[in-house]
Each structure stands twice: as C-alpha cells, then as structure tokens.
C-alpha cells in the first residue's frame, strides 16, 4: 500500500448550484446579445471593407483605392487637426472652469455648473445651427470673423468646443476635487510659491484626469457627424465622408473603409483613456484630507471673469438657437412667432418624428438600464465561468471605441443582409433602440459596475448560506441599493437617445424618423428655422426629463435616508 500515498488525491469537482447554472446561463444570453448587437456587425463590416459591390473578396483593393484618392485621404488630415485644435481649446477652457468651480472662491458655483452642463441636453447639431445664425452669411456677428467663413474648419472647431465642453468639465472637476490638503500644507510650509504649488501639486494631481479628458474630447470631436455636416461646407472630415459614401453614393464598401480608418484613432484614444482612468482612481489614498479653498481676491476675480465669459457664450449659443426658432424671418423680420414649430411646412420634419424620438428614448432608457444593470450584475457576481465573464466585460467596453457612424453602418451590413433571420428588425423602431443601447453601453456598464462594487461582496455568501436564490437577493437588496445608479443610467440613455444622430442616421425608416435626424434633414433642405425649433424641442425635453430625474432622485434620497444613515 506504499503506492497509495504517492498517488495524488482526486481533485474535487465542485457541484454547481442552481444559482450558478442560472447565472451562467444569463451570462451566455448576455454575451450572445452583445455579440449580435455589437461584435458580429463590426466583424461583418470589416469583411465588407475587403469586398467589391458584388460581395467578391478583393483583399485590400478598396483600401488602395482610398489611399490613392487625395480627395478622400485629405479627410484624415482634416479630421486630425480640427479635432486636435478643438481639444486644445476645450481642455484649456474646461480646466480653467473646473479649477474655478473646485478651487476658486467664486459666487454662484451651482449656477455656473448648471450652465456648463446645458450643452449635454442638445444634439451637437444645435451649436452648428446657432453658429450659422451668429456668423453665417446673414449672421448677426459676421464681422467678428474678419472675412473668414464660418462654413468650414472654424465653424467645426467652434461648434465642437461648445458641445464637448461639459464632457471635459465633468472629468476635470472629478480630477481636481480629489485633492489632498496635506500636500498643499506641506508645499506651503516648505515655502513654495503659489505657482510652484500649482505646478508641483495641482497639475500632477490632475494629470490623469487631463489625459482622460483630452482623449475623450478628441474622440468625441473626430467621431462627431452632426457639426461638420451642418457647418462644414466643402471641408470634408472622416465622419461626413462615411455619410457621403453611404447615403450619397451608395458605396457601402468605401464607407466601410473610411469607418475602419475612423476606428483607429478612436481605439487608440480608448486604450489611453482606460489607462488614465485606472491610474486616476488609485492616485488618491483613503487617508487623504479634503482640501478647502481659501479666498484670494486677484485669482478669484480672474476665475470669475473666465467662468462668466464661458457661461455667457454657452447661454448665447443656446439663446441664439432659441431666438432663431422663434424669429419670423431671420434676419429681415425679427418678430416672434411659433410657426416654425409647426413642422408640416418644413421638409423632413414633423411632430411624428418628435413622438418617435420620445418613444425611442423611453424604450432605450427602460430596456437599456435593464440590460446594462443585469449584465453588470452577472459580470460582477457570477462565481463560475471566469473567461466568459472577462469576455463579456470586454465586449461591454467596445462601444466606447466605436464611433456611432461606424456602428450604424455595421448595423446596415448585418441586419440588412438578406439571409439574416433578424432582417425583420431592419427599418423598425427596435433596431434604433438596439443601436442606441449598444452605442452608449460602455459608460452605463461602468456606472453599474461601480455601484455594484460598492456593495458588500459577502451579501451573496450570506444569501447562499440562508438558501435564498440569488435573484431574490438581487431584487430585494442589490437593485434597491443601486437604484440611484440605475436611475442615472436610465437618464443617460434617455438624453443620449434624444440627442444622438450618428448611429441612427443610417437606420431610421420613413416610419421611424427621429427628432435629431429631422434637425439634420430640415437643415439640409434649407429649413434652418424649423431645424432650430426641433433642436430646441430636444433641449427642452431633455431638460425636463433631467429635472424629473433630479426630483425623483431627491425624493428617493429622502425616502431612503433612514437606511442610508445620513
């Protein structure tokens, strides 16, 4: 029997519980969902870029055709420098603004914060339309451009700065508000000057936030379609080229090629941004002492001047759009009227489109938060199938790197393929909802994960020891405790579904036109005032829903403060 001791004991194969089967199954369903609404369409688009019009494999022929056509490749340079310039301006302004809000002693911080967030409620098209009213051929402030035309890079940069400003601001406020007072005290006690403290403490503390903001803004600008479409004139960019190839010339293969080129900077930006994010969160130790601002009159006055100016410009652009939608006949008859809101006379817009948008945004919010939260729950809580969990999590991160135009085009390729059993979705409301959920999946997924990670990881252990199935605990404990995050996700989906143009512009049908697309089409047809009116409707709706959200969040907070212990 001496051999018995040498033999390795049998490995224990854990028997799976019903919970684990169910969660594993759920994870498979989720992975399948993300594969269908994201991965497969993208892969098919990749394949399409190497096919000719008849679907014959032509290797890199399309790419060669693209790169030997200077009219097309010019867009690469255009997109890069315009995005870089817009990013530079946004980051400089947003950093000053964020610095004023977090470190300055200025009045009306709440108001300034609110104003800065306003562009989030508008489609990116709105800023372009307002800029045309301000600086266009009949613009009120045309002279300010010294004869330069707004239709082109100037307009694109200005319009992009407006709508990406709050995105940069949110990141920079977060980066600047996690300051450790101990470092400032140390710097001060060592006799460092204020500039030296700023350069050695403030800037390094916010550097990952800055990197993150730079890449987020760069990606937003380079992948945006609305602003260059409306105000770009003959100045071609990658995003507008995709649209021209697909909608204008019906050259889907070339559209796929441009999409892949547009995908590159977005993917690079994605990885840099993820890296910066992970560094930012670990930069602050739990022992940090919160920093309190002390008034310094000269600095504060300068900061107040800056934020006032920026706020004024934001309000000016919004106000211009509002006024444009109300003026009878710009610039000849400036008396106010509501007739531009009667879209029946305009080409491409209707109240039906507005209704469709509300419907689409509602479904996206409800379904999106359900899918995203369940998905994040399964990724975070399933105890088996680690490779599948990792894969699903990575799938959920992809949308961040995929421009909306690219996703929309990929959807055409996939859902419109004759053999696809899901073909019936093409042209329906459902495909718009699916595309929008996929487009905005990543941020929602990360929000849900963060909320879930804040809960005690032993809830599930306790629940299993009490022989309670996981879904009961998820329903009675996990979801209620994450309700604020779920509401945030829902509102994020709703507002973005109202304002987005890029993914859905390829996917709507005459029966499912959307308000944001109607803005684009009316502007295209020369009905600029109704376009401004529709854009304003979107702003008002998104704003109203935001208010509703703020109200319900406050109500929820009061109702639950007994157990939140505050």
């Amino acid at each position, binding site marked *: 029997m001496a051999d018995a001791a040498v033999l*390795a*004991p*049998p*490995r*224990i*194969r*854990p*028997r*799976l*519980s*019903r*919970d*684990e089967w169910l969660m594993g199954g759920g994870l498979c369903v989720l992975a399948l969902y993300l594969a269908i609404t994201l991965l497969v369409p993208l892969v098919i688009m990749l394949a399409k870029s190497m096919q000719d019009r008849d679907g014959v494999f032509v290797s890199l022929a399309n790419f060669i055709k693209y790169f030997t056509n200077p009219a097309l490749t010019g867009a690469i340079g255009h997109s890069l420098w315009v995005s870089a310039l817009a990013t530079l301006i946004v980051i400089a302004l947003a950093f000053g603004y964020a610095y004023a809000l977090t470190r300055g002693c200025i009045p009306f911080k709440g108001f300034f914060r609110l104003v800065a967030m306003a562009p989030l409620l508008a489609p990116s098209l709105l800023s372009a339309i307002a800029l045309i009213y301000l600086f266009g051929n009949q613009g009120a402030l045309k002279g300010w451009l010294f004869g330069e035309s707004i239709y082109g890079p100037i307009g694109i940069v200005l319009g992009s700065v407006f709508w990406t400003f709050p995105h940069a601001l949110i990141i920079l406020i977060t980066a600047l508000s996690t300051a450790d007072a101990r470092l400032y005290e140390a710097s001060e006690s060592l006799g460092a000057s204020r500039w030296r403290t700023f350069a050695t403490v403030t800037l390094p503390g916010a550097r990952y936030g800055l990197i993150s903001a730079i890449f987020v803004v760069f990606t937003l600008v380079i992948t945006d379609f609305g602003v260059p479409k409306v105000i770009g004139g003959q100045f071609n960019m990658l995003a507008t080229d995709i649209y021209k190839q697909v909608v204008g010339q019906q050259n889907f293969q070339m559209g796929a090629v441009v999409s892949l080129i547009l995908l590159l900077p977005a993917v690079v930006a994605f990885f840099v941004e993820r890296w910066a994010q992970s560094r930012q969160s670990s930069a602050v130790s739990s022992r940090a002492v919160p920093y309190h601002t002390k008034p310094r009159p000269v600095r504060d006055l300068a900061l107040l001047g800056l934020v006032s100016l920026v706020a004024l410009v934001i309000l000016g652009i919004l106000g211009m759009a509002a006024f444009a939608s109300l003026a009878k006949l710009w610039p000849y008859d400036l008396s106010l009227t509501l007739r531009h809101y009667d879209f029946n006379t305009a080409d491409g817009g209707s109240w039906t489109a507005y209704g469709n948008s509300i419907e689409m945004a509602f479904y996206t919010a409800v379904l999106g938060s359900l899918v995203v939260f369940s998905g994040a729950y399964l990724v975070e809580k399933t105890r088996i199938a680690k490779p599948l969990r990792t894969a699903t999590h990575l799938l959920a991160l992809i949308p961040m790197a995929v421009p909306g135009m690219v996703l929309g085009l990929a959807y055409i390729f996939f859902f419109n393929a004759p053999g696809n059993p899901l073909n019936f979705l093409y042209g329906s409301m459902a495909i718009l909802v699916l595309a929008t959920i996929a487009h905005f999946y990543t941020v929602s997924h990360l929000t849900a994960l963060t909320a879930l990670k804040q809960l*005690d990881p*032993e*809830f599930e*252990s*306790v*629940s*299993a*020891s*009490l*022989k*309670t*199935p996981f879904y*009961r605990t998820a329903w*009675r*404990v996990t979801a*209620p*405790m994450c309700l604020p995050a779920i509401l945030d996700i829902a509102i994020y989906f709703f507002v973005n579904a109202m304002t987005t143009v890029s993914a859905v512009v390829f996917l709507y049908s005459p029966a499912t036109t959307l308000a944001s697309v109607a803005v684009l089409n009316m502007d295209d047809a020369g009905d600029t005032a109704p376009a401004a009116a529709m854009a304003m409707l979107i702003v008002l709706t998104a704003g109203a829903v935001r208010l509703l959200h703020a109200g319900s969040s406050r109500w929820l907070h009061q109702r*639950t403060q*007994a*157990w*939140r*212990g505050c």
Partner: protein
Amino acid sequence: MTTPYLRVRNLTKRFGDFTALDDVSIDLYQGEFVCFLGPSGCGKTTLLRAISGLDIQTHGTVEQNGHDISALPPAKRDFGIVFQSYALFQNLTVARNIAYGLENRKQPKEAIRRRVQELLELIGLPASGNKYPSQLSGGQQQRVALARALAVSPGLLLLDEPLSALDAKVRVYLRDEIKALQRRLGITTIMITHDQEEAISMADRIVVMRAGKIEQIGTPLEIYHQPASLFVAEFIGAMNLLPALLVQQGEIQLGQTRLACTVNGFAPGTAVQAAVRPEDVVCTGRTNGHANSFRAEVRDLEFMGPFFWLSLSGGELGEHRLRAQLPSQRARELDLRPRDSTHLHIPAEHIRLFPEGYSHG
C-alpha cells in the same frame, strides 16, 4: 469516543502555484467552539471558505454529520455565517434582515414574526426590529448578523473575524455574549481570528495555523502551556527565547548558570532554545531559597498597572536578556530599582526546549 460532527480530511487548496492550504485535517465535535488562529495569510480564511463551500478546496474531503459535502455548493450545506463586515442588508429593517432566511422557507407569517422576536430578545435588542442597520452601533449590527445566521437553526455556525471591526471595549463585551449564546444553543461553532487573546478566552479548542498548515490543535491551556512548536510558543502570549546548551538529560547551561528542566528528547551537547514565559520567572530579591535560581541585574522597569515589566541581564545571565512579569504588589515589597541585583527562580516545569535554528515565519 463519539463520532465527529465535522470531519475535514487532507484539505488542500491551490491558487495557481500558490498553496493556500496544505493537507489539513481536523475533527470537530458536536457543540464545540473551535477557533482557527494564525497570522494573516496562514490559510484560516481559506479553510473556513472551503468548509462553507464558498471557495471549494482543490483536494480533500469535508464530512458534516456523516454526509460527504466536499463538492456541494453553499446553498446545499447546513451552516450560518457571520462576517467581519456584518454584511447586513442596509435597505431592510433589522427584523427583515433576521427574517431573510425564514421567508424563503414558506413559513406562516405569524411563525416568522414570533421567531424574529425570539431572536431579537436572544441578542438583547428586543425593541430594535423596526430600525435600519445604519441606526445601530457596530456591536449591535454584529449581533443582528448573528441572529440572522441563527434564525434558520443551522447545524454549524461560522464566524469570520466577527469582532475585528469593533472597538476594544465592545469587542471584549461581545466576546462573552457570543460565547454565552453559543453555550446556550449548543451549536457547533468555528471562529476565525488573528487575536490570540480572543481565541484563548472563547474557544474550547484552538487550531493554530501557519503557512497553510496546522501547527497545533489543543485546548487554550495546552496551547499556552505546552506549545508544540517555537512558532506557537512565540505567537501565543509573551515568551522569552534564550539560547542554551543541553549539558545532560534534564539540565541546561544558560549563561553562567545551570538550570534543571523536565523536557528531554535532545542529545546532550545539543544547542537549544529555552522558552520561558515572563510570568513564570519568579523574582525573589535578595533571598535565594530556591533551587533553579540565578542572579541577574535589573536593566529597566516598566510600570503596566497591575504588574511591572522587568528587563534583566548581566550577572549569571551574561549577555542574555530576560523579561519577567512582576506583580505590582510584589514589586513594592522588593522595592527594585534599575541596576539592582536580584535573585530569580524559574520552576523546572516551566522551561520548554526547542531545537535551535528555527527561522521566524
């Protein structure tokens, strides 16, 4: 002897190349209170998670009440668990937390209500059923977590460092509470702790662990007075470790003195480590009426309230340093000052010998 309630046999848990548990076997008997004690990373939590099924072992078996549960998921096992973090459901009231496991068993509402009230009284919080966990103190929350685990009358209670998050005073108080409750209910209990005082005061038996292995299993008295290894000797309580030489069976050379000791098992001429607890060093001042005595000089006196820490060296001790615990009353009688010379006596049965060359883990 009765059959064990829980039989753990040859449990091994590997995480990649790292062996967190290495061939661990223990028997637990019905109604016992056992503590797994050891420094962090010793494998005590891994062992508990294997027993609960939360993280199942790589090899080895676990039997509970005669059934092989080695591969079963937690929900198919019979245990209640309490965590250091309490893991109370923050959005449910105390009563609903306690009722959580009962509601799943399709019991009538009235029966659940009565059982909850009974448990609330058991943990001394009869009026707190409608409060939320965040409205209770840490100690109260941990009692609620205990009641929630006990509500379904499990056969085995697992406590994962239940007192570590609490203030020192609450901790001592709750220690007695939990022990009393466990005795009253007679429930077989395993508690994990890194606090040796907690283990000694609460456990019927202590399992001392180190680096994935069991160093010693025994009652608190055995562990304290007959440590099986140098690691246990050092880990539990305070201990003097003095290099010595075994001159003949039952006698060691320590500095310039020779002391009798009862331990054998070493060949004469072996270098050993003599382990002596500070409270076993008896200070007799100028008088020297004992066998096993020697003289040393007081280096330092540190007042601790009920006793003094005495640092001794020189005299017959030579280079060696010895710490002794001198009761305050005795210190007053002797009136010792630094640099005083004093006689010291160590009873032969309180000297334990360990092989030299042990590396501290």
